[in-house]
């Protein structure tokens, strides 16, 4: 029986595609689609979302040190205990991500069952934190890793899935924890090692954003404040970054490693959308730190792009000078919590209309760095508009 069926299907296949027909199909594709392809090539690399994707809910959880920083007043949810009521730092971070995700869903006035998919990323091996958080939240889950730019990666994939009509709502979460990152990438916490002045401090926090194709579902809190713009903040464009490696080897100097990736994506975004710095109210980089953003400004200036007043770095503004954080914050949660609280709040207040957000990630592992490899870096861009 089986053999016959296979034979039949083969036969059918042979009958369906006679040689002359194949040619006509090919030429048909050529005639119709070459123009379309050429048109597309002009905006190559830019993900132009056909329908804008709305940010309907957001939450950011931070630790004690971040709350004490200059942006402290913007963070609503603070975890004062380093272990977050858990047994160890990894569990604390899992709890942070779960809390952030659930709070974002709650802020969006949605139920757990309304969420179609969860995209999450963190710094630990095998996406430890995201996987355990997703286990406990039991949502359809994709793990995203591009180090500190994981949040933009989540947003890009999430909004592309929604724009493609595959899902209606997606929750994007990231987290990082100073103690767990320190243990994985550096030394034990209590070990008396000196850090170089260009080092950065991993932000303890969790950030989560709910994306939806429907603007009517707006956050409960934003309604209560009565400040919400019609439809709230939306994502309209995005760009996937290239892996850039200019050959830096120092694991402590991540700002210098990541700055070229940031500039590359920024310039490609400007070139492919035919815009320049003046077209945006704010350009936000992820966690370059003070040194990294200086280097980025210099590199961009070499290419004729002047980053001045409308440029800020989330890592650079995260901590005050006297907080002993060296060049500033780092980690996926660093830009995540700043975007979620400070930037989006200001956008809803009408201060900024168009914000280009480029998080940067250093994709190194301590093993390859000890083996003498250089640090590959990436930066993805997301454009927020009110």
């Amino acid at each position, binding site marked *: 029986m089986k053999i016959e069926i296979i034979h039949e299907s083969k036969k059918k296949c042979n009958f369906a595609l006679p040689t002359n027909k194949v040619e006509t199909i090919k030429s048909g594709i050529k005639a119709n689609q070459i123009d379309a392809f050429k048109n597309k090539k002009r905006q190559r690399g830019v993900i132009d979302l056909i329908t804008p994707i709305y940010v309907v809910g957001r939450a950011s959880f931070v630790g004690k040190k971040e709350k004490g920083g200059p942006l402290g007043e913007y963070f609503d949810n603070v975890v004062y205990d380093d272990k977050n009521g858990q*047994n*160890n*730092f*990894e569990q604390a971070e899992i709890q942070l991500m779960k809390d952030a995700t659930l709070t974002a869903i709650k802020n969006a006035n949605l139920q757990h069952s309304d969420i179609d998919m969860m995209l999450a990323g963190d710094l630990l091996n095998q996406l430890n934190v995201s996987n355990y958080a997703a286990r406990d939240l039991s949502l359809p889950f994709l793990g995203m890793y591009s180090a500190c730019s994981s949040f933009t990666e989540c947003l890009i994939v999430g909004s592309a899935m929604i724009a493609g009509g595959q899902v209606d709502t997606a929750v994007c979460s990231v987290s990082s924890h100073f103690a767990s990152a320190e*243990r994985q990438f550096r*030394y*034990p*916490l*209590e*070990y*008396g*090692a*000196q*850090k*170089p*002045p*260009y080092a950065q401090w991993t932000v303890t926090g969790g950030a989560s954003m709910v994306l939806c194709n429907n603007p009517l579902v707006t956050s409960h809190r934003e309604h209560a404040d009565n400040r919400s713009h019609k439809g709230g903040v939306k994502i309209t464009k995005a760009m996937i970054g290239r892996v850039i*490696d*200019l*050959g*830096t080897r120092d694991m402590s*100097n991540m700002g*210098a490693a990541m700055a*070229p990736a940031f500039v590359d994506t920024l310039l490609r975004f400007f070139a492919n959308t035919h815009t320049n710095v003046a077209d945006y109210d704010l350009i936000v980089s992820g966690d370059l730190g003070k*040194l990294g953003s*200086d*280097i980025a400004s*210099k590199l961009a200036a070499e290419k004729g792009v002047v980053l001045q007043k409308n440029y800020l770095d989330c890592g650079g503004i995260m901590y005050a000078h006297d907080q002993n954080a060296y060049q500033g914050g780092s980690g996926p949660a660093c830009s995540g919590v700043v975007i979620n609280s400070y930037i989006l709040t200001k956008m809803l207040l009408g201060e900024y209309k168009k914000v280009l957000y480029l998080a940067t990630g250093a994709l190194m592992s301590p093993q390859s760095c000890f083996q003498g490899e*250089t640090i590959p870096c990436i930066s993805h861009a997301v454009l927020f508009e009110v």
Partner: protein
Amino acid sequence: METIQSDMQVLADSEQKNKMQSDRYNKFVACISPKTSLTKSLLHSFVFGGAICVLGQVLFECFLMIPNMTQKTAMTAMLMSLIFLSILLTGIGIYDNLARVGGAGCFLPITGFANAMASASIEFKTEGLVFGTSVKMFSIVGPVIVNGVVWSSVAAILHYVITMII
């Protein structure tokens, strides 16, 4: 075949170009990155390291005052007290703050070794007594032990050979 070869050529060319670019960039980064001040580091190390040594000397003198105490036993007791203090300060989270300022002054004396072992065993306690504490305890001090054994063996052999000749 030709296209593949030309592609390889392009790749090789870009590799060379990348190397030049990376050299230039690394120089630029080294130039712009803030550096630690040598005099400040040396001064801090001297003060902190000196203070630990003074403390050791004071403890040694105190132990010598105990009747029937030999020099050798007093020395051992002094080292044990320093190690105990270091581990205590590590456990309550003070030693790393001191070492952040003290640098090599806190790292070189025996207290630094004790801190490195204690901090690793505290850190990895969560992974259990065998795979956490026991395995990871030597993760930082391992190189010290290995180098200590290797170079003292070399020194011993040299000493033996030289005394044979003379």
